[in-house]
C-alpha cells in the first residue's frame, strides 16, 4: 500500500572518502525517493555502498555532495543538535550485530527505545514485544536469547520509538536463511500508512520478499523496481 507521502528524498548524493591521496567513492550521484507504506530492500555486493547509503539517510554520516530530506527534515546542512533531534524523532536503526544492550532485559531494551524517543503517548513495551512474537521473553537478558530472538528485540526496540522510518543494515546477516526471511517478513509488516522500511542485504534470494529492490553497484544505483521474477512468498524461496 504505497502512500503519497514522500518520506525519503535523495538528490544527486555522493559520498567520498579521502584516504592519503586516493579518493574512495562509496556513493556516486544517487537519486532515491521512498514513500510511506514502502518496504525497500537495498541489494548489492560487498563494498557497493549499501551501509553508506543507509547511514546517510539515518544522519549518522553526511554526504560530500547532494541533498537529503528525510521525514520533512533537510538533514544536509543541519546542525549537530538538530541531527540528534532528527534521529530521535524520525529514524530508527536495526543493526547486523543487533547492538542491543547486554545489561538490559528484552523489555528494558524496548523501554530504552520508548525513553529515547520520549513521545507524549508512549507505547507499552510488552505490547511491542508481543508484536515481534517475544511477549513471553520479556524478562530475559540478551545472552539468554538466540540470534534471531535478539534481532527481534532490536526490531521491537526500533518499533518502540514510533518513528516513521526503520533503517535495517544487514538485519539477517548473522542469521540462518529461514530466520532471516522471517525477520524480513516482520520488517515488511511494519511498512504501512505513515511509515517506510529500508533494509539492506547482499542476499539476492532474500531480497525477493520485498516490494521494491534498489540494487547498488560500485556506489551507483544499477536498478530500482520490483524484484526480478516478482515478489515471492517464503515458500517460493530457494536456499
Amino acid at each position: 500500500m504505497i502512500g503519497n507521502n514522500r518520506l525519503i528524498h535523495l538528490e544527486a548524493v555522493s559520498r567520498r572518502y579521502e584516504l592519503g591521496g586516493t579518493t574512495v567513492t562509496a556513493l556516486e550521484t544517487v537519486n532515491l525517493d521512498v514513500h510511506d507504506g514502502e518496504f525497500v530492500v537495498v541489494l548489492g555486493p560487498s563494498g557497493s555502498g549499501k551501509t553508506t547509503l543507509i547511514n546517510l539517510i539515518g544522519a549518522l554520516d553526511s554526504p560530500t555532495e547532494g541533498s537529503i530530506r528525510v521525514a520533512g527534515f533537510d538533514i544536509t546542512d543541519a546542525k549537530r543538535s538538530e541531527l540528534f533531534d532528527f534521529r530521535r524523532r524520525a529514524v530508527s536503526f536495526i543493526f547486523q550485530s543487533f547492538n542491543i544492550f547486554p545489561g538490559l532485559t528484552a523489555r528494558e531494551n524496548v523501554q530504552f527505545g520508548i525513553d529515547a524517543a520520549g513521545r507524549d503517548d508512549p507505547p507499552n513495551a510488552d505490547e511491542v514485544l508481543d508484536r515481534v512474537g517475544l511477549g513471553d521473553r520479556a524478562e530475559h537478558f540478551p545472552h539468554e536469547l538466540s540470534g534471531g530472538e535478539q534481532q527481534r528485540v532490536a526490531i521491537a526496540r526500533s518499533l518502540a520509538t514510533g518513528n516513521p522510518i526503520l533503517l535495517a543494515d544487514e538485519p539477517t546477516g548473522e542469521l540462518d536463511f529461514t530466520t532471516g526471511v522471517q525477520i524480513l517478513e516482520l520488517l515488511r509488516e511494519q511498512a504501512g500508512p505513515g511509515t517506510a522500511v529500508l533494509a539492506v542485504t547482499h542476499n539476492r534470494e532474500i531480497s525477493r520478499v520485498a516490494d521494491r529492490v534498489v540494487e547498488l553497484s560500485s556506489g551507483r544505483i544499477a536498478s530500482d523496481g520490483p524484484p526480478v521474477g516478482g515478489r515471492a512468498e517464503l515458500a517460493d524461496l530457494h536456499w
Partner: protein
Amino acid sequence: MNSFGLWLRWSWRDLRSRWVQVVVISLIIALGVGAYSGLSSMTRWRKITADNAYEQLNMYDVRVELAEGSAVESGSMLAVVDRADTAGVVTDAEERMRVPVQVATTTADGDIVVRGEVIGVPLDNDGPAINALFTKAGRMLDESDTARLTSMLERNFAVNYDLPAEGTLTLSGGQQIEYVGHATTPEFFIVIPEGGGFFGQANFAAVFASVETAGEFAGLPGSINDLVLTLESDSDRDAFAAQLAASFATAMPDIGVVVSTTDDDAAYSLTYEDIEGDQQFFNIIAVLILAGSAAAAVNLTARMVDQTRREIGISMALGVRRRWIAMRPMLMGVQIAILGVVLGVVMGWAIAAAMRGVLESFLPMPEWLTPTQWDVFLVAAIVGLIIPLVAVSIPVWRAIRVAPVDAIRTGHLASRGGGLAPLVHRVKLPGDTFKQMPLRNIMRAPRRGLLTALGIGATIAVLVMLVASIDSFFGAIEKGGEEASGGIPDRVIVEMDSVYPSDNGPVGAVLVSPLISDGEAMLRVGGELGPADDPIDVFVEFVDWQGGLFRPDIVEGSLPGEVPGIVIAPKAASDLDVGVGDTVAVRLPRRTGPVSFALETSDLTVSGINGHPFRSVAYMSTTQASLLGLDGLANVVSVVPADGVATGDLQAELLEVGAVTSVQRADSMAQLIEDLMAQFVGIFQLFEAVVLVLAVLIAFNAASIAVDERQREHATMFAYGVRRRTVVAMLMLESAVVGVVATLIGLLGGLALFRYFITQWAQTMPEIAIPVEMSPATLLWAIGVGVVAVGLAPLLTAPRKLRKMDLPSTLRVME
C-alpha cells in the same frame, strides 16, 4: 608466531591508544612510591641525625633533681655520688642550678613575657661536658662568662620569636641579662610544655648561664639543685639510678629527690617515639596509595584483556603459545611499572628535598645528616615494579585459561548479563532507562565496580584519617582551653615564683590591682599520681569549691568533701585504671623548710573526674592545703580583667609586682598550640590535596575505560538520538554510585585507621586524650571527594571521547 618485533609493535599501538590511562596509573603508582620513599627517607634522616646529636652533645645517662624550690650547697650532690658504692661506673658528673624565672624580651611584634628557666651550667673547661650546648647562632659561652651576666638563649624559643643572635633579657624582679647566642641542648631538642605535648617554645624560654650566675639570680649564691651523670657504656642505668636514689634519700632525708634516666627524658623519648609514630603513619599512607594504584592497574588490565579476549581466542585457535599471548598485556604492565617507578623515584626525591627544609626549620638538631637513602628507594622501586606486574598477571592468567571456543564466540563478553544483574532485575529501580542503565552496568560487573571503589576508598580512608586526626586534635586542645577557663572566659592566671601568704605580700598586691574585677589566690603544685615506678605527672590546683571564683567541671563523681579526695582527668583515670571512689597514690611536695620540699606520698580517694583532655590536670580542695603544710599560702592568682582591660596591659602592670613570673590567659596554651599547629595543617592540607587528586585520577581512569568499553553501546544510543550530555550524565551517575560505595569503604577504613593512630598517639603523647570522633566536616569531606569528585570525574574524559567517536565505524565494527 614468535616474532618478538611484531609483538613489540602491537604493544606499542596498545600503549598509544591508551597512553592517558597508562600515564594515569603510572602517576598513581608514582604517588605511592614517592610518598613511601620520600617520607621514609625523612624518618631515616631524623633517626641518624638524632643519634648523632645525642652522641655529639653527650646526653646524660642519669639525672638527679631536687624537689621544686629546694637547693643545696655546690658540691654536695657530687659528694653523695662519690660516697655511693656504685660510683665506679660514673664516667662524668656535673652539678647544675636550675632557677624558674619569668623572661621578658622584645620581639618584632612587641614585648613578650614567658615562663622560663635559668640553667646554670659549669663553664670551666669549655662549657658543660654533659648535655653540652651547641651554638646555633652568636657565640658559645666561655670561662670568662662565669662571673658575668651573660647567657645563651634556647634556640627553639629564639627562632619562634625570630630573635636576634644577641640581645638583652629581663628576668623576674627586673634583673637584666645579656645573651650572646642561641644554643640547643638535648633537653630542648623538643620543648615540652608543662603538662606534656610539644610546641612549648612559644611560652618557655631556657636561658643558659654559668652555675654561679644562676645561683645569684635565685638569691642563693653557691647553690645547686641538679646533677647530671654519664656512665660506663655497659652499665645498668636503671639499677644505678635506684641505688643512687637510695644514697640521696639517706644523705638528704629532708629533700625530695627525683632520679631519672635518659629514657625518662621527655624530649628524648618523644624524639624517638615521634619518629617511629610518623613512620607508621607514612607507611600506612604509602600502602594505601599503592593499594589504590594496584586496584586501578588490575582494573585497567582486566578490562583491556577482556576487550581483546576475542583476539586472544583467535590467537589460541591459531596455535600461538600462551606465553606469547600473555606478553601483550604483560608488556603494558611493564610499561606502567617502569613509568610509575621512574616518576615515583623523582617524586620521592622531590618530597624528600622539600621535607629536608621543613625538618631543618622545625627541629633544631646541631647538624642534619641527610644522605640519600638508596635502600629505601630500592625497596619502593621494587614494590612499585611488582605491584603492576602482579596486577596485570591476574587477569591475563584468567584470560589464557579460557577455552578458545568461548573466547572466539561473538560478544562473548558483551552479551553476558551475568554478575548481579539478574538479582537487581527483580528489584524495581526508579526512573527511566537512562537512570537504570548505570546501576545495571555496575551490577553486571560488580567486581570491577568494587575494585574501583576499593581504590578510591583507600584514598578516601587516608583523607578521613587526616581530617579526623586534625579535627580531633584541635577539638581536644580547644576543650582544654575551655576547661582551663572554668567558665570564666577571660580568666587570667598570675604565677608567683614561690608560695606567699594568700592575702598580703605580692599575692595581696595582685588582688588589689585596679585592672582586675575579681581575683582569687590559689595554690598549684606539681606532683605525681599512681605507682612510684611509673607515675603520671600532674599539677594539682587547690580549688575553693564553696566560695571560689574558679570552679572546674566535674563530669563524674563529686567535689572533694570532708575526706581528702582528688579530682583527676579522665585520661589519668583510665591510664591508672581507677574510677570514682577508688584510692590512688598521690605524691606531692610537702614543705620542710624555707627552701626545701620533700615529696610525700598519701593515698587519696578519687572523688571525681574532671573534663580536661590533658592528663596532668587535677584538683583538690583548698581545705586540704594543710596536707602540704601550705595552708594560708598561694603561688597562683586567678584573676578576671576589669572591663576593657586587655591582657597585654594586665601583663605589663602585674609583672611590675615582684615575684610574679607569668601573667597569661588560662587558655593561652590551647591558643598557642592552635596557632602553631596551623603551620602543620598546611602540610596536612597538601596531603589532602594529593589524596584528592589520586581519587579523581582513579575515577577518571575508570570512567575513561568505561567509555572505551561501551563505545558500541554509546554509538547505538547516538543512533537513537540520545544526546551526548545524557550519555555523559549516565556515566557520571555510574561513577557517583561507585563513589558512594567508595565513600562507605573510605569512611569505615578511615575511622579504623584513625582509631589505630589515636592508640599509637596515646603511647607517644600520653598526656593528652584525643577523642575518637568524626566531625560533620570530616564526613562532608569524605562525601565531597567520594561522591561529588568521583561523580564528576567522567566529565574529564567522556565528552572529549564521545565527541571524537566515529559513529558509522563504531557501529559497524564487530568486537
